[in-house]
């Protein structure tokens, strides 16, 4: 690189830093501005879209703890990480590509964000806040039969994947329901990507859009309650996963503050009451997670 090129590179870098710092904030800025911006996507019981939800309540309480106002910023699965980190992030397998700059619209992501490797390259997660797992669902008329639990999750996953030979499976890119995350192509599954929201996956399945769909456990529990007898759970395609709150890598203070806050509401039982309100069944499925001490 000659000297002129070097000067241009430095100028570009400075520009990036300046533009990036216009709206990216850490705890000090948040307290100074007096508002916490919660990035959310309407999804299952985490963010219902009508001002309620487990993560909405947690974040409202967190904002009150910080002494700032709470502001909900709605976004979509495609943009949620971009809106937090201010970059156009494109997942590429387990890696990511940065395609450019976008506006930073929020301070943290909380809407049942599963902790998966490519996201960890651009985000810092809080300690796990919710257990999850990805299940394979089909409609009640399907000839596929749910597996009998073998006692080990690996065998169960193998049994479930074996059903997918030459069958279509519905998933959603940029989310934990992306079929590529679970190597379904290796069992000759035909993947179909869904354009609608995650909440619409189960209805799409019932309308015959695909033979099967991926759903995470929280959404499955909601779907089973909403459409009893119309869908069935075939079994797991992933081991137990965890969800957490996503932070920019340059917001360590905010992440620490949330960690302290979360420990507090975990230990005083507030968090369990909130979970019970939106996911009363989750304690039966993942008792170990909620019995753990932080």
């Amino acid at each position: 690189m000659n000297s002129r090129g070097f000067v241009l590179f430095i100028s570009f870098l400075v520009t990036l830093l300046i533009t990036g710092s216009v709206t990216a904030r850490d705890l000090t800025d948040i307290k100074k501005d007096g508002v916490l911006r919660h990035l959310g996507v309407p999804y299952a019981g985490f963010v219902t879209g009508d001002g309620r939800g487990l993560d909405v309540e947690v974040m409202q309480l967190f904002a009150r703890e910080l002494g700032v106002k709470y502001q909900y910023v709605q976004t979509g699965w495609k943009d949620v990480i971009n809106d937090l980190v201010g970059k156009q992030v494109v997942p590429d397998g387990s890696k990511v590509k940065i395609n450019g700059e976008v506006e930073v619209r929020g301070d943290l992501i909380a809407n049942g964000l599963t902790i998966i490797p490519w996201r960890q390259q651009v985000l810092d997660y809080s300690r796990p806040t919710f257990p999850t797992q990805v299940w394979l669902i089909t409609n009640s008329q399907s000839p596929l039969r749910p597996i009998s639990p073998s006692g080990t999750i690996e065998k169960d996953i193998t049994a479930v994947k074996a059903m997918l030979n030459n069958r279509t499976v519905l998933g959603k890119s940029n989310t934990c329901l992306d079929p590529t995350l679970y190597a379904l192509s290796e069992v000759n599954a035909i993947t179909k990507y869904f354009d609608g929201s995650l909440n619409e996956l189960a209805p799409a399945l019932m309308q015959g859009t695909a033979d099967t769909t991926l759903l995470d456990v929280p959404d499955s529990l909601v779907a089973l309650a909403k459409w009893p007898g119309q869908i069935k759970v075939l079994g797991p395609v992933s081991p137990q996963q965890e969800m957490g709150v996503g932070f920019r890598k340059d917001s360590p203070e905010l992440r620490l503050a949330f960690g302290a806050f979360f420990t507090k509401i975990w230990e005083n039982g507030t968090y369990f009451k909130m979970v019970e309100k939106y996911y009363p069944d989750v304690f039966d499925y993942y008792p170990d997670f909620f019995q753990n001490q932080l």
Partner: protein
Amino acid sequence: MEKSPQKKGLLRGISPLVYAHLFTGALICILLATNYHTQHRYQQTNLQQLQNNFENWVIGVDYFLSEREADFRDLAVSKPITSFFANRALGMTMTYGLQASLNNVTRLFSQLQNSSRIGDNPIYNSFNLLDKDGSVLTRQPAFGFAQWLPIPEADEMKEGQVIIHSHTSGAVSFTAPIFLHSGLQGFVQGWADYNSFISYLTGNKISGMLLIADQDPNLVFQSRSDEEVILEPLRPLIADGVSKTFELPRSSLLVSRDKNTSKTGELTLFYTQIPEYDIQFFLVEDSSAVFKRQSLFLFMGVLAALSLGVFLVSTSIYRAGTKNLLLRNSLTEAEKREKAVGKKRKELDAIIRNFLDTLIVVDNQLRVIRVNQATCKLLGYEEKELLHRPIATLFEDPSDMIDSIFSFYGEKDADVFNARGELRNVELSYRSKNGLCLPMSFNISIIQDDLGNISGVVAGAKEISTLKSAMDKLAGQKTYIENLFDVVPEGLLAISPSFTIVKHNRIFTEILREWTASFGVSEKSLTDELLTSLKQALDLTNQSVLSLNHNNKRGYFQYHGVTISSLEGINHVVSIRDITRKRMAEEARILLATVIEQTADAVIITDTGGITLYVNPAAVNNSGYREEELVGYLPSFFTEAFDELKQCKKLWKTISNGEVWYGRFSNRKKCGTLMEEDVTISPVRDNEDAITHYVAIKHDVTEMALLQRQLLQANKLEAIGQLAAGVAHEINTPMQYIQNNVTFFDQAFGELKQLLTDYQLLLEKPGITADDSCRLNLEEIDLEFLLTEIPQSIEESLGGIDRVVKIVSAMKEFSHPGSNEKIATDLNRALNNTITVSRNEWKYVAEIITDFDQDLPLVPCLPNQFNQATLNLIINGVHAIAETGALAPENPGRITIATRNRNDGVEIRISDSGIGIPEDIQDRIFDPFFTTKEVGRGTGQGLAIVHDIITRKHRGSIDFSSTPGKGTKFIIRLPLSDHHQGTTV
């Protein structure tokens, strides 16, 4: 034998005394009998009243239990419970999803436990969901009471059945089977304590000890626990199951738990049962409290004492032997008797006054002679206002009917009436002082005087206005519901538990008739089929759509079923709506929408302002723009760029007038690629014929246009190729004689050169005479011939060269690729060129006669395409003439080409003397690929290309007239001004 005077005196003295004693004794007996009879009747009435009250209370318990039965019938078909079994039937496991369904059931139990309350207490203390084998699937509370009671007939249980079982623990259980797809899946069971609701239902109405037993009978509940109950002695007394009242010694039924306080005496038991639930009820009262017998004994004692007094007085009178004394005694006796009767009357008055229900006494004259306070209070009269008033005036009912009822005994003696001498449950309506109508239920009994004659009636009555009002309301509601049933615009069915139709409304009949006729089946057959389908459907869901199919006709029926538990004989009420038309329309709409979504043609819908409201995927794909970049904006054919093409106004004018506009656009895709589209824009009208939208259907003809251009070029090349041989031949002829002439020039020049050389040598050699040499050479070279032929050959060659130049020039002009822009063209010259280059085609069969207007103006034209069109017409004419057998030059056909200047354009007429066009194909000659020529001679594209060139590319017109056997004339009209109409060329 004659009596002695002493005896006679004694007899005279004894006789009044005996009479007095006999009279007194008889009086006492009468009073005693009357008192006993009255008391007995009072006691029996009281017993009957208590028995009635007890039975009414048990009816309340029965109603309460039936409500609980309905609770569990509903619970057995509730969504959370059926969903759990449905999910389990799908094969789901607790590990993966089924646990959530079971938790839903547990939450439902919890909600029911909290919401089902009587007074301040919960009705149920626990709920269980049991598997088919009785194992507990879930319970509420989690560690609450759960007990599986083997039900002998469990396998025979039917849907909707609820078993209510009383337990010696004081609890009652409700067990309902759960069915899924007609198969028994399990049971839902609830438990309640008798204590929790009996005390509430009892209130303060029952004073004695309440016992509840099962059918055996085993004691399941007792309201007081200070005494132990032995039910065994009751077994034979209640074997017939009939409600009754009976007495038992206390010791045979109750044993005091505290031996120091053991009681004795008689007990009165009121008994009734609820047979459908196998529950028996006993109300145990102390008989002394019920019968109040001490009053009877006291009265008898008083009478006995009175009798004794009378007897003693009588004895003293006897002893005094004086009539006055006897008379006085008699008077005294009468006074006392009167006092006794008065006392009795006071007691009766007290009874009447304190009687809680209304009581009224009417004499033979049908006038009121006694009323109690309850009557006065009810009617709003003072007692004195009612006394001696005609009874009929107190009623709303007709007076003759009232009189008839209150003198029901007629002229008959009391003895001829039934044992009770009464009318029961006569429903009449009092009219209160303030005019209110008060429905009452009367029991009317005759009353008799001391001589046993009927002296009137006593009528006790209960107000039944509330009951009547409720029954009227019920009847009104029934009528309302029946009317509603018929006016509901949907078919309604009331279906029995065995799934037969109990009742249906008019609309259902109409639906049935319509589809019976449509399907061609019997009404019964269709009804059975519908019920079978309904039964299967209702097992799955309460509302959905049924589809019936017969003879290739399909009907769709939307049903909505409601399970009814409180109406006897009806298990479901189902509404049915014939949605066939709607469904068909919906299917047609979906098909249409699918067609629009999947068609390869772009469809754009705009509002009347031209703003795009909808684009189909083809529009997005064809244009390369995203949907959001198209919707909300003017389509390209409405934009300013289009205005530049001066078509917008005409387009708007056309579609605003409600007409369809056709045209072709050349637009650019988002990526910049040029795209050609044939567009049809049609107005869309609403029901009132007003234009609401425009719909544009755009067919991407980019490739077709390219193919057309290629085809045109190919056609042109074909024509050029076809013409090439002729042109070569045309050129070859002049070139041959030019070649001959030039050869001649070469020879002639050699000879002339030799001559000139000789002349030069002759001039240089002396001695040779010029005459000899010249003569010799002149004879050899035939100079005269050369001087004649050379100028002619030169002229001929120049002519040949000119002809070649013309042909080459014509060919060049004809085959010039030209431009895409119209240029002012001399059509006469263009036609001459075409005639020239095609000469070899026509010269052997025809001659061409031109009749050109020499004042023809220049016409905006695409020359190469115009040439192509006229060449095609000439070639077609040649072929048509050839068909006639014409042969030039002996018998040539004729092609006439004329041009004329018209006011608004020019006209070119090309006529031939060929075989003409048969009438049956005249309307198809411009169709692409239509030809009557043999294979290899015509592609069928010639006239289609002519039509396209003239009408679309030049905005002109082409018409023809043809007479088979005589020839055809084509008339082309081209405009002088260049108006674009929706295309760029």
